[in-house]
């Protein structure tokens, strides 16, 4: 048990992502307000983006933009350049997240116009009364 704890504490960066993810997850399933749910989804997404980008890090690695010499002669040292693939994937994820947030906000505005509230149980009450 002691060794396990030491291993876990040594990788404390993963704790940050897991705690962020838990905050987002709880906000998504536990809160009753739709805007809070949306915020929770964004926090969840941020946790995953941080996790992916941190996977590409290498010790003593520079950014994935090669210098002129490295690019022309093709002599890039793999250990000196961090992994570009997670960055590409997360660029995609950020953009899709912006789109999802935009559409969700539009739907929330329509719901507010229709029912006058964003609380989930009040909306359900109003639906059942119709």
């Amino acid at each position, binding site marked *: 048990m002691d060794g396990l704890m030491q291993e876990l504490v040594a990788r404390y960066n993963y704790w940050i992502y897991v705690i962020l993810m838990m905050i987002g997850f709880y906000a998504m399933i536990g809160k009753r307000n739709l805007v809070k749910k949306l915020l929770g989804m964004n926090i969840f997404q941020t946790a995953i983006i941080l996790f992916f980008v941190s996977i590409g890090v290498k010790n003593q690695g520079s*950014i994935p933009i090669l210098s002129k010499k490295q690019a022309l002669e093709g002599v890039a040292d793999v250990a000196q350049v961090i992994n570009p693939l997670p960055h590409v994937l997360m660029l995609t994820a950020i953009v899709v997240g912006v*789109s999802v947030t935009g559409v969700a906000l539009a739907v929330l505005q329509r719901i507010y116009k229709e029912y006058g509230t964003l609380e989930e149980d009040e909306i359900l009450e109003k639906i059942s009364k119709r």
Partner: protein
Amino acid sequence: MKRLQEHFEVHDPNLNLIIQTSIRILVPFVQLFGLYVIVHGHYSPGGGFQGGVILGASFILMGVGYDLKKSMELFPEAWNIAMANLGTTIFVGTGLVCAAAGGLFLDYGALSNWIGIEPAAWRSLGIFAVEAGVGFTVTSVMLSLFWDLSSRGELDGGL
């Protein structure tokens, strides 16, 4: 001082003179930086998505400082829709041109069958065309999201 007072009598006092003037000075530089980020995406951090968001933010800044009408004078609604379409069409069209030149879809190197410069140079140009298309789409979609969300779809007044 008198001119300032007249300005506030004529215009809506909620619109602040200092904010408007500084935004008017700032916007060209923001747009220039956005274009730089799109065009220089091969050699520095940047690319179509980031530059497109910066370009869209410059128009959003006009919409925040003045009102939506001003923002829509600068970038009309019809142009907005046309530009979103144009960007996507540029992207897909680049892929189709590559396919027509005898390669795979979006295989820019195949264009050297038509014009004989080396495939690496064609790939560089192809990436640039694609990034420009992405930049157009992102600019106009960001602006249209702001218009719709800030005015509840009525496109008047705004914040």
